[in-house]
């Protein structure tokens, strides 16, 4: 670890890393990079989590990965180290490697972090910021980092006040930033099941009689996932459909019921659909470059419901 962190120093360490990797392997290594992927987390989060996630993600989204670990409180010095994540694709003889930089800082040094990050971005490639901590995401001092990324992926899961988080996301999006919520991504499988149900013509015909949808969500305050789902169902099925919520032990959303005159359609969601792994969700988001216009409407709808 180096105490004084300079971007030039880190870049030099990275180029030395490549030289040594090249020498280690007879076949040489393939250096792969399609984006800069910044993963910001609280220092209190188990440091292995971000590393394991990146190791899985970079197979499909090779990147210059920057893990930013932020401790609350004061402290001026940043710390950094560089490493490579390498893997051997099945059936191939040459390793593919991605570079990874780890930076540790305190909250009060975030302005300095931004300066370092700006110099470390892989040239001309997209910049994605995954914010694993809601505390950081809502921090005023973190805003400049959000502004520096082409796409920001936050996660309102488990927020004590989901509406406040949704409002913060809406405010960023209103300023033209592409901020996405993994709570919305978590619904893709669920939404797909609902859509598949109404692919059947006899079921689609019953939709016009539906007046109420009941969403079963995890106990506690209505989670962002349930608010999003309610807003999406209204957006798709029409404003005559009134949402209601019921709580039960389990994943953020475990069932949806479509109710109306002579209609009762209950769609329960299997665990694999209702609670996908974070890595799967990030994989979906990293692969999406186009703006999500449905999300814009759903976000506005969810805020108006709350």
């Amino acid at each position: 670890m180096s105490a004084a962190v300079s971007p030039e120093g880190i870049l030099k360490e990275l180029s030395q890393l490549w030289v040594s990797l090249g020498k280690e392997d007879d076949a040489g290594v393939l250096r792969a990079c399609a984006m800069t992927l910044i993963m910001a987390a609280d220092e209190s989060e188990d440091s292995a989590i971000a590393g394991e996630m990146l190791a899985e993600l970079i197979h499909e989204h090779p990147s210059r990965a920057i893990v930013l670990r932020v401790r609350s409180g004061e402290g001026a010095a940043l710390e950094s180290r560089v490493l490579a994540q390498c893997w051997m694709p099945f059936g191939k003889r040459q390793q593919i490697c991605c570079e990874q930089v780890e930076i540790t800082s305190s909250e009060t040094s975030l302005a300095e972090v931004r300066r370092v990050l700006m110099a470390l971005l892989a040239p001309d490639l997209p910049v994605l910021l995954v914010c694993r901590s809601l505390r950081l995401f809502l921090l005023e001092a973190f805003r400049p980092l959000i502004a520096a990324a082409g796409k920001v992926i936050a996660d309102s899961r488990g927020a004590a006040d989901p509406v406040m988080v949704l409002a913060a996301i809406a405010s960023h999006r209103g300023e033209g930033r592409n901020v996405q919520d993994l709570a919305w991504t978590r619904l893709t499988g669920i939404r797909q099941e609902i859509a598949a149900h109404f692919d059947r013509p006899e079921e689609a015909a019953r939709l016009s009689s539906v007046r109420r949808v009941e969403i079963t969500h995890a106990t506690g305050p209505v989670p962002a996932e349930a608010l999003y789902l309610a807003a999406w169902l209204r957006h798709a099925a029409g404003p005559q459909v009134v949402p209601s919520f019921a709580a039960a032990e389990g994943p953020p959303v475990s069932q949806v019921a479509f109710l109306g005159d002579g209609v009762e359609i209950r769609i329960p969601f299997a665990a694999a659909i209702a609670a996908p792994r974070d890595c799967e969700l990030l994989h979906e988001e990293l692969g999406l470059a186009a703006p999500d216009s449905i999300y814009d409407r759903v976000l506005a709808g969810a805020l108006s419901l709350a």
Partner: protein
Amino acid sequence: MVGAMAEASNPFHDALRFERRVPPCAIVIFGANGDLTKRKLIPALYRLAYERRMPSGYVIYGNSRTEMPDDVYRAKMKESVKQFLEDSPFDEELWSQFAQSLYYVAGDVQDTAFYSKLAGRLKEHDQKTAGNMLFYLSTQPSHYEPIVGGLGAAGLNQGPGWRRVVVEKPFGIDMATAKALNRRLQAVFPESAIYRIDHYLGKETVQNVLAVRFANGIFEPLWNRRYVNNVQITAAESIGVEGRGAYYQESGALRDMIQNHLLQVMATIAMEPSAAFEPNAVRDERAKLLRSIRILKEEEIATHAVPGQYGPGSMGGKPIPGFRQEPGVNPEAQTDTYVAATFFIDNWRWAGVPFYIRTGKRLPKRVTDIAIQFNAAPLSLFERDNMGGNQHLARPNLLIIRVQPEEGISLRFLSKNPGGGMKLRPVSMDFNYGSSFGVRTPTAYETLLVDALAGDATLYTRQDMVEASWAVVQPILDYWNSHKFEFPNYEAGTWGPRQSDEMLDRRGHLWRVP
């Protein structure tokens, strides 16, 4: 009905995030005991299941004459999948699930009674498959007509549910047989239900040609006669006929590679952008391009198309027999195991630009690529001697699209050598598919099968395209059939006959060494 139409009218559909859904269906493979089924089709279907891209309800029926119970067929296919699965691990548990949907029905496709037996078996699964059926013709081409006729007579060509038929190459052995085959297919299935497979179009890099050309503003302005000097398409194989000599001697490289695959590749390189990325719009442009290829006049053929046949040679230090020494091959065979041809496209974009295409067996290595040679700088500031010696060999200004084995794109240009003086050297800027996306690229058969199941015919050839490419190839075939050549004319393990180099030399060009 479940499928594209239902998706369009379903208010819950989200085109941005939802994976393309493949509707439930039955897949029937004719020729299921054959080489293509075991090497490509079943491994591709298994891999689609591995990636959860198969529909929620599906059954696969294999047919050929050999009697065997389902379990024996399953065990046979399991071995094939293990052996031929490309860049992918084998998962025992997934195989057990997959195998439960795999059945075998023995029968002779020439026997009309067989089709009612098949219909009965398929009916048992209607609940699961919604009556949708995809018939895959992977038999010898002489069986295509009886199969399609049998399906029609048994009413299997019509729903409930959709019915599609995938036809393997060759689509006829000349223009007349291609037209006759099309007529017979269309007597039973509408053209929209006929999927003529050309696995080259399913290759990821060939599809990527369209993305590179039409999604970037930097290439298209240069993609025309003002800037492009010539285009070279190479599809080289190092293997010989691998025990298929008897089949190959009737077909030859012109029919086997140029009429279908390489003319389609050429069309992809040269076509105009379509108004939308939608099956018929893309295919209309491909077809238009194929129709613009100048048909060679009889007196032009000798100078524009070179046939070759390999003689004995050695590769990797091992002696290799010549084509005429291969088992099952006539010692006097006039078969072309190599073809090099010069084509021109008669439209405003390409007038005067030669498209050189070559393909052959027993060439030094297995490689398929497309090279766009741009014009040299109009005025050279640098001494010839400083440009890496022979300007031909230096070959700057070259965009190479590598189709196999390593898929990718390279741009070659001149750069200054480090150090004093203005010595230039060609350098290469490489994009490697594998490392930029880090993921395994699907095999052509995976892509094409899932497209056919989803009803997307963009990468399949249409009748007019087949006939347009026969129109290009037929005069060459006729000319070669009426002439006797001094074969063999290249040694196994070399880059083809001398006449092929001479063909390019006449225009001041030189084949690349890929």
